[in-house]
């Protein structure tokens, strides 16, 4: 691997970026994730039973827009946010930590506000409606729409086939990308919030607080993976909306981050610089947020990236087991769980969602590995 040499004075963020981009797996993983987010953002325009433009009786209409649900606007909001990031990037490089945290908070806010809505099955479609001109999305089916073509294998009409009620798998996967990506992102943000707060307080104040937090971490860690989540989700089944699932996954997967932050804070707070800050009269809050946290940010980011991958995996396992999102909402695990009953012949029901999950998790893992090597080249296993 050729890492371009350092040129002049570069910031920490620039150095991480240089090392990260030199790793081809990490670079391509990041590209796949960005592509997935774009696909997720544009899903209603890629797979929808409503025409994008329809000209009939001399009138031009855009049937796709009235059909959008609030949940579908969510990802569209990411586009202005991406623009915002682009224009603020100079500020980003100068003080990466605060803009980054602000960004996460903003995305999490959008998600949480819009997560509780469910898609509504809208039976109208523009495929067969007469028009002098119409432009349909590339996949002219909505993810929750049943068609008479049941169990159609992959074909030009249905690139990934259809399921037992004739729903188009490609449309379900495109829309399911939103479920998986946003659950991964928000669940991990919740875990980040809890883990950094508890771990940070334990590492900074030590003493009884530390002992209490450590015991709590130990208790949470002793649940075998999935057990606590399954208990929490299956017992409150009536409340299985997206936000509840995000919260349960987030609230059960913060322990690794808390351990990490605690360790970093224990190490950092015995170094001279936080003591100097304290001697200058800085408050505890200021020392934690302005001096300790920025120095621990690298490992936190690495761990959070792997955390997103595992949150996505947990979500798809839950949907697969039938404990995840409620029926009409498309999700990758849900398509896979449909595949269970018809596995003796309908290979496309298992193959395509499996591939989607594999690709996403692998990309996040590659990005995580790349970040880890970039944040701390000493850790690198050559």
């Amino acid at each position: 691997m050729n890492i371009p040499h350092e040129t002049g004075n570069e910031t920490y963020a620039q150095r991480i970026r240089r090392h990260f981009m030199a790793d081809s797996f990490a670079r391509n993983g990041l590209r796949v994730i960005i592509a997935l987010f774009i696909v997720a953002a544009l899903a209603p325009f890629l797979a929808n039973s409503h025409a994008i433009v329809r000209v009939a009786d001399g009138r031009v209409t855009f049937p796709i827009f009235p059909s959008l649900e609030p949940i579908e606007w969510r990802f569209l909001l990411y586009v202005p946010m991406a623009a915002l990031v682009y224009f603020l990037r100079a500020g980003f490089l100068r003080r990466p930590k605060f803009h980054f945290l602000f960004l996460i908070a903003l995305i999490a806010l959008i998600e949480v506000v819009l997560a509780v809505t469910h898609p509504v099955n809208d039976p109208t479609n523009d495929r067969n409606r007469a028009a002098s001109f119409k432009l349909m999305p590339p996949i002219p089916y909505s993810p929750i729409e049943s068609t008479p073509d049941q169990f159609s294998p992959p074909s030009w009409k249905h690139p990934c086939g259809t399921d037992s009620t004739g729903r188009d798998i490609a449309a379900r996967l495109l829309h399911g990308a939103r479920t998986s990506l946003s659950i991964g992102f928000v669940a991990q943000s919740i875990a980040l919030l809890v883990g950094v707060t508890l771990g940070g307080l334990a590492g900074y104040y030590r003493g009884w607080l530390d002992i209490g937090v450590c015991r709590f971490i130990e208790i949470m860690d002793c649940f075998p993976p999935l057990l606590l989540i399954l208990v929490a989700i299956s017992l409150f089944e009536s409340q299985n909306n997206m936000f509840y699932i995000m919260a349960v996954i987030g609230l059960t997967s913060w322990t690794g981050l808390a351990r990490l932050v605690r360790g970093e804070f224990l190490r950092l707070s015995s170094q001279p610089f936080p003591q100097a800050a304290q001697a200058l009269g800085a408050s505890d809050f200021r020392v934690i947020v302005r001096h300790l946290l920025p120095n621990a940010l690298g490992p936190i980011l690495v761990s959070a990236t792997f955390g997103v991958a595992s949150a996505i995996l947990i979500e798809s396992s839950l949907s697969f087991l039938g404990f995840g999102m409620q029926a009409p909402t498309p999700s990758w695990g849900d398509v896979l769980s449909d595949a269970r009953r018809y596995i003796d012949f309908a290979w496309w029901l298992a193959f395509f969602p499996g591939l989607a999950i594999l690709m996403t998790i692998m990309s996040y893992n590659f990005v995580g590995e790349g970040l880890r090597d970039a944040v701390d080249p000493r850790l690198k296993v050559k």
Partner: protein
Amino acid sequence: MTTYLIRRILLLFPTLLGITLLTFLLIRLSPGNAALLRGGGGESGGRAMTAEVREQMIRLYGLDKPPLVAYADWVGRSVRLDLGNSIVDHRSVAAKIGERLPLTMSLAGSALLISYLVAIPLGVAAALKRGQVVDRTISFVVFVLYSIPSFAAALLLILLVAGGDYLNLLPMYGANSINAPEMGPLAWLWDRVLHMILPVICLTYASLASISRYARVSMLEALGQDFVRTARAKGLPERLVIFRHALRNALIPIITIFALELPVVIGGAVIIESIFSLPGMGQLMFQSLDAKDEPVIMGITVLAAVMTLLSYLAADILYVVVDPRITYE
């Protein structure tokens, strides 16, 4: 060491209390209870129950008591090793778990054993050919394996080799064929093995990936040590340097991972059992979660937590046993 052990074992109890309290409160704070689920009939499939019988049942299982009082009752019974009876069929929780445990444990045990047998040679080979094509191929394949969700792999394996339209080599569901009770012991065992091949493969490959990564790192570390250089300098053949000096030291951290991987594999077994319809702990847990069978859920949680805690403890003790340089003083 003895003081350390005693302290560790004493610390197990507060942790165990915390885990069970958390589970108990989750069950109690969720809407509905087992008696209502059974009495309601309809969807949950139970027979309709008269109000009188339901009242009796609620009192019998202490479902009307405040959560903390009921929890204290449960702890009082559990320390006398009485986990109570299932609300659904009134059989003892210990017996219900006991008949399912062997299957899950044999599944998890064989999966772990096989992952070790495959992962260590892979990791060692990658470390010896560090940076070469072999290393990069192994690392990449292992990384891909690590990212495949086990349930997707299970479905595709069933489709390809078990009863699908393609190859029909292995049985699809269950722990035994229907006519298993009439088989002789050897035929029965063979039948069981055939049924276990796919579930074990699905459980194996994920832990195989993480163990082989550990093995590679730990072997690389060992190869960089002074004693390996000394062994080479005194003219030992490379085979002896690698197997007698480097590998033996590299195995120390890998052995202790056994204890940390065990809970992960048992957790994974829950999903795999549900796909292959195996009557193990996972299935029992889903059934009891569906019926809100409080005593059984608590029993499974306790068992899982005790196993996890003991395997962490075992990992720490193993460290000392296999590496005399480490002491807990």
